[in-house]
């Protein structure tokens, strides 16, 4: 168990390194830089551009800095650590070394603010939204899926199918607008232009909108796993033993059917926290979703690197947790 965790954590290092390397390569290949202004606006002049590049470290070579290495060597430096540091004194090297210390660099767009400060400031809003959405998805999705599976082709089954279809096919900006028009303009239950994001109440409507897709996903997974478990031999045995259907469902079917469902919750929550761009935009929630998208359009290099690395880190962790939780939930896997 411990060795498994350690192994996985060690694996995370090359994964994160290459995620950083690939995004660094990609963003520098994309045409246009962070200081390029559109032609109907005042352009940055050459002297200022030079100072800007120096300030953000863009005057350094991209990946490695052999010149610095040679210069230090000629100057008589023989300390291998300092020589290695000189060799990686490049945009990429410096970024990754700083990222190790938790410094994700200054944002190019929001001047004067660091990427980690911006994300740290805004993530609680995204987390709240994601938690509401996840709660909704679990509380509604699992029971709906179970009922749909136990009573196939019943009303509940069709309702689950309906929500699954709506959740997948109606884009969230349409759904969000419909919710706002119905509950905001007509029923007046919610305030449309709220900025009260430090409380929980305004998150309910956006949470439902965001959670619908996850809910339909969870419903379908629950339904199919319950259907599968229902046909297992041990369920027949339990019934043959004379157990009441209540007990069979609760103790035998649900317990086993929920394993795959629980293991998907990590990635689902991850998706909800980082992938709520559209919902956040419709409901004007100041979350972190916008940084994941805007950074690329604005070529905000450090923000692109920062969001990508954080996303990769969360993904790695979520996968470790999922693999661990398999072991917790299913003794057959644990013994292996």
């Amino acid at each position, binding site marked *: 168990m411990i060795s498994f965790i350690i192994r996985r954590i060690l694996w995370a290092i090359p994964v994160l390194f290459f995620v950083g390397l690939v995004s660094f390569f990609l963003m520098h290949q994309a045409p*246009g830089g962070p200081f390029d202004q559109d032609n109907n606006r005042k352009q940055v002049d050459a002297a200022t*551009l030079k100072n800007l590049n120096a300030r953000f470290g863009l005057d350094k070579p991209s990946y490695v800095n052999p010149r610095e290495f040679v210069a230090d060597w000629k100057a008589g430096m023989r300390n291998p650590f300092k020589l290695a540091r000189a060799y990686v004194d490049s945009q990429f090297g410096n970024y990754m070394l700083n990222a190790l210390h938790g410094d994700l660099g200054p944002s190019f767009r929001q001047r004067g603010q660091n990427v980690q400060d911006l994300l740290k400031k805004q993530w609680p809003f995204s987390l709240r939204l994601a*938690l509401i959405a996840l709660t909704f998805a679990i509380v509604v999705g699992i029971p709906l899926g179970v009922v749909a599976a136990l009573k196939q082709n019943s009303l509940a089954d069709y309702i689950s199918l309906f929500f699954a279809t709506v959740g997948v096919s109606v884009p969230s900006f349409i759904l969000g*607008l419909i919710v706002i028009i119905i509950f905001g303009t007509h029923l007046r239950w919610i305030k449309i232009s709220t900025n009260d994001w430090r409380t929980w109440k305004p998150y309910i409507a956006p949470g439902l909108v965001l959670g619908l897709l996850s809910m339909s996903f969870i419903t379908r997974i629950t339904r199919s796993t319950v259907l599968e478990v229902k046909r297992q031999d041990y369920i027949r045995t339990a019934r043959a033993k004379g157990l009441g259907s209540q007990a069979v469902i609760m103790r035998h079917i649900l317990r086993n059917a929920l394993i795959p469902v629980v293991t998907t919750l990590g990635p689902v929550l991850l998706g909800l*926290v980082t992938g709520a761009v559209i919902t956040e935009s419709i409901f004007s929630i100041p979350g972190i979703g916008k940084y994941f998208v805007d950074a690329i359009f604005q070529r905000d290099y450090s923000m692109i690197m920062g969001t990508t690395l954080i996303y990769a880190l969360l993904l790695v962790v979520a996968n470790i947790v999922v693999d661990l939780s398999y072991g917790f939930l299913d003794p057959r896997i644990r013994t292996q």
Partner: protein
Amino acid sequence: MNLRRLHHSFAITLLLTLMGAILAACGGTATTPATTAVTQATTAATSGGAAATTPPAATTETMAAMTTTAAEAATTAAAVTAAATTAATTAATDTSTAASATGTTAATTSDLTGNILRIGAPTFPDSLDPQAESFSNEIPYSQLANEGLTRLDKGLKTVPGAAESWEYNKDDTAITFTLRSGLKYSDGSHLKASDFAHAVYRTADPRNPGDYASSFDMIKGATELQSAAVPTDTAKIPDLRKAMGVKVIDDTHISFQFTQPTPYFQTIASTWIMFPTKVDWGDAKGDNWWQTASNHLSNGPFVFSKIDTQGEVLEFKPNPNYWGDKPKVDGVSVRFIKDLSVGLQAYKNNEIDIFGPDPNDIADLKADPELGQQYHESVGSCTLEVEFNQARKPFDNKNVREAFAYALDRDAFIRDAQKGTYVKTLGWIPPGFPGYDATEKRFDFDPAKAKAALAAAGYPGGKGFPEVKYSYSSSNPANQARVEYLIQMFQKNLGVTLTPDPVEGKTLTAMRKKAETHPLLNIGGWCSDYPDPQDWLSVYWNSSQSFAKVLGYKDPAFDKLTNAADAEPDPAKRMQEYLDAQKLLIANVNGAIFGNSKNIWLIKPAVQGLQFSSQDSADFPGSTTSLQGVSVTKQ
């Protein structure tokens, strides 16, 4: 059995808390110094009752767990949890993490009472530091709370602001401003002439490089300061400042010396980069000083009463120390609504008083019996044209440019493709701006002349015309229909074949940096920085400028006229030279000019006295005049 059930719930809790903890750790909560954390936790605890309603129990647990995990990661942050648990409930712990991130207080409800003007705007500003701003979502807010030496009235005339008068020397190479006596900031401290000098220093400071750093190039020594290298030349900065042509004579007199005659400097003195900055007031508080309302010293009609960069709240109160008329409203509150359709719902719900709707809704709004009455439009500060890359074939041929200019049915294009958000124009400088030429009627839509011009260029009926790509930014989804409309129009009227070429926004910007890669055809234009013909003609079309270079526009006669006008001390003669230059520009067919941008608004009848101006930001009307004279009747 029970043990296994425990496993289940444990796994779920583990999943949720770990996710939270990792997120918290990524944010780097651990670095907050212990002492400030304690005070902030206490503040949060005291205001906690009002700030945070009780969250659902399960999530409170998660929040608490995650704070604990984050705290365990570094010993310094342990104080956060310790202080918070002694001081308040878990709900307050949550708030304290949020509060310690920015140092802002956690209160969320509005502090304003009375007759409040509620503005709906799309995006929260990236900066509120006047010398770092450059966007329409930043500048108007600073315009409410600040005032330059001069200001613009709604007719875009330069009128006295903080300075009551100004005087040029004989050849317009120096200007002296006389400030009003007894000017005070909102906190009661004195506003001195040196604060305006400081604004110039800050703008040109190489340690604070910004888009508008080169705006004071005409001042002696400004280029030297601005192009000093950082950090190698940092030590020289004080000397470079002293060497600049900025002289503070006494507390109420300041003069600027120029490298060449600059008869339009009083207009530049009204721009946001000239808003006074008290010496070492903001900078001493770090790069993010502007995020706290109390750090802003206002000399305009309003004062920032609340800035919450985290929750995106922006509020203003009247400035009691403003020299001029006091605002008639008790406060201004800005609501940031990113989506225009949602903004319209908020407006219908009476949650905001002023709002710029989606152009696609204009027809429906005008037809609505109630909203139609509240619909207003004003001409904005941009001129748009179909741009030709004149450095490359076939647009290096003037006849081809003429053909395209004649082939553009402006009325139909503006009505159908632009939804009436432009006002048709054929001249370069927009109406309302000095230098506007009302007599310009050349190259209006005329299919017959278009065909003739194309034939004269050697492509009768479009025969032999090379394949031309029409490039547009795909980052704005509305562009596709517009471009397809234009292409069909050109194909019909000229018989040429054009290919639509969607390009991601920033990629297109990069392509437009060089004449070799600049698209042959695209929609472009210019928006005013300050109302002077120099900003429109010399800054854009003089062949020494990057804009003219990338479009391949070069006309020695035009250069000569604009250079002469820029340095001409006689206002009448100067204006005539600009008008002549503009005539020349149109004669060369610089582009197929089609319209001036229009700002469209929905304004509640309760709002009275709003002064529209062409220089207003597209985010809200009346910013140029700092919303002076605007009143709201109590709802």
